[in-house]
């Protein structure tokens, strides 16, 4: 008799733990032949609020970690993903990717993590300034993380698109809550398992699965979110996101139409998008 394989339960990732959605809801994910691959958590607004609490609690510690350490942890995520290339490729194939496309997406995701790992202790030097003011003051501007970032990850790029949005946010000391692709959510959950094995402190990255139609407004309106990144949607979505984001002046970052495998997705200005410039003055004198 052949062995019965053990199927994975796909759960969400909040505060370094893998709970099921508190709502108890799910949606079936089917392959191209209509066969159910997995019952995916249909995350709720309450899940999101819990994730924001976790992200907020984790934020000072993560921002306070040395840039060197953040870089090493991002590198470690890349290492862990490298070790599980086959699993991720298989999962992408299961969700409809060709074998070649699946391999390419996994490789690009690993390389992207290594790319942003390298920036963690460099972007500050590129974007900071000592400002030559006319009075007798020492004046300098540095970047600081904007805080907690909500990410509505791209739907069409379940792994690479997610990684490309999470990596720059956390490289810069933010913590985040991401909503996985709706049509290809499995890679996001497996990626959470990689994060969990990579010394990323609990709460730094939180990943939900669920319906965009239910959660977009919550991601954009929550009063303890400092910036919202969204990657899909038409003008109507833009209007909805920015309208509610205005309530606490969130930074609104629109990344629609990005080719996640291209150069558009790989530059340090993506880190800068979720940074604040702080300028400090001090008198010079004896």
């Amino acid at each position, binding site marked *: 008799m052949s062995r019965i394989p053990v199927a994975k339960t796909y759960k969400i990732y909040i505060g370094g733990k893998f709970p099921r959605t508190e709502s108890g809801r799910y949606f079936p994910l089917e392959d191209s032949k209509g066969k159910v691959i997995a019952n995916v958590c249909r995350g709720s607004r309450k899940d999101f609020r819990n994730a924001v609490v976790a992200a907020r609690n984790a934020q000072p510690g993560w921002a306070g970690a040395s840039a060197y350490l953040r870089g090493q942890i991002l590198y470690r995520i890349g290492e862990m993903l490298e070790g599980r290339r086959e699993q991720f490729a298989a999962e992408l194939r299961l969700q409809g990717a060709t074998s070649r496309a699946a391999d390419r997406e996994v490789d690009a995701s690993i390389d992207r993590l290594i790319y942003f790992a390298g920036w963690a202790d460099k972007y500050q030097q*590129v974007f900071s*300034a000592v*400002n*030559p*003011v*006319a*009075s007798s*003051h020492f*004046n300098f*501007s540095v970047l*600081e993380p*904007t805080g907690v970032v909500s990410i509505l990850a791209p739907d069409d790029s379940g792994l690479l698109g997610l990684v490309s949005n999470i990596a720059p946010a956390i490289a810069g000391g933010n913590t985040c809550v991401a909503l996985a692709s709706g049509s290809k959510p499995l890679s996001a959950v497996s990626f959470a398992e990689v994060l969990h094995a990579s010394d990323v402190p609990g709460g730094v990255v939180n990943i939900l699965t669920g319906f965009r139609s239910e959660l977009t407004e919550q991601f954009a309106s929550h009063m303890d979110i*400092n910036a919202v990144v969204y990657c899909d949607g038409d*003008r*109507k979505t*833009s*209007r*909805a*996101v*920015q*309208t509610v*984001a*205005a*309530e*606490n*002046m969130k*930074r609104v970052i629109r990344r629609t139409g990005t080719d996640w495998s291209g*150069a*558009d997705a790989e*530059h*340090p*200005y993506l880190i800068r998008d979720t940074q*604040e*410039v*702080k*300028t*400090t*003055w*001090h*008198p010079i004198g004896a």
Partner: protein
Amino acid sequence: MAIPENKLAFNGGWEYAPAPESTDHVRIDKRYGLFINGDFVAPEKGKYFDTINPASEEKLARVAEASDVDVDKAVKAARDAYRGPWSRMKPAERGKYIYRIARIIQERAREFAAIESLDGGKPIRESRDVDIPLAAAHFFYYAGWADKLDYAFPGRKARPMGVAGQIIPWNFPMLMAAWKIAPALACGNTVVLKPAETTPLTALKLAEVIADAGLPPGVVNIVTGAGKTGAAIVEHPDIDKIAFTGSTNVGKIIMRALAGTDKKYTLELGGKAANIIFADAAIDQAVEGIVNGIFFNQGHVCCAGSRLLVQESVADEVIAKLKDRMETLIVGDPLDKNTDIGAINSRMQLDKIESYLAVGKEEGGTMHQSSCRVPQKGYWCRPTIFTGVSQSNRVVQEEIFGPVLAIQTFRRFDEAITKANNTPYGLSGGVWTDKGAKIFKMTQSIRAGVVWANTFNKFDPASPFGGYKESGVGREGGLHGLDAYLKLGAVS
């Protein structure tokens, strides 16, 4: 002679003699049109409003009220100028025009300073030494960027946005116009700017300067009016970027109005900065910092140090010294060179401040005002402090935009940080201590865009300015301020 109780009774023996700035060299027309396409033109609907001197309540001039139609004309002129000469011009030449503006402002600095004080009520000492020189410096600083933008954003190609719509407040009328126009032009954009309705005159004088500097028509257009004119700019479909400085409430309205459009925006909004005094600070200097933080420009400053957090062990000493110092402040004629605190900008703003004084008392705060005389006519508010207030009090949480300071105490470092960060705002902050390590810890912990350590309310064109949280989006000033007026793309 009895020894005065106040240890700073500068004025105890002799009164200060009046030292008014002369205004005989100042030219203000009876009526101003709109500056569109290089000319002053009458508003389409023929409406005008008065701008008055808040220190005397006398009319200074009639100023055109721009309607939708006028704004549309201004945007068309700006668009034509953008397509035509301005975006095709060699950047170095663009820079030379901006240098010219800086130089002419320097030449006419006295006139500008006097008009700024007449129209807005601020002390001549401030308009003469701060507002106008800094405005000229802003143009001079950004002029030099015009042909160097490729060096500002490594790995990116910077391109202008197009037409910028800019709306500025009444607290630093000329300086805010410079903050907005100088970087916009340097980055290759053209501009439609609306000054505040209570302080339009220096922007209109700036229009004269721009014409004298020979800028191509339509590169800068200045339209006057109130909120409706501003809304017409925000909603105009052919504007690419909105830059606004003003209240957080209006900032939110603008952000919502722009939702679903491709317009970019930068918003410089309100603040409720904490000025934090540790026991180990140089107390006399700190007291000067408190005074400069909240009484500079009548407290009409978005980054004003409107909250004082003082360590408990020195609270009594600091407050006693502050009260003594407040007694020496001269409130009165903005044109007098001795004046420390000028007129409140408008009747409306005075009403708002007075309503907050009532709120502060109702909430249980103890109010103290200096005993100075104020003139009969005009809008005035004595320097005011509240003690005995708590974190949830409205005078602690909300921006008053007047010479009103809310004082709280703290014991431990963490308590100071928690209190300092406990408002929706994050524009600025101040810290006073003699310990270097503590300064860095504080400046890192304050969630605000500008932190002054052992100083307060300093500004410079090279220094980025702007807020965290609900104090706004984006930066103005310095290299970082260029970003507001450029599209960054891949190097092709």
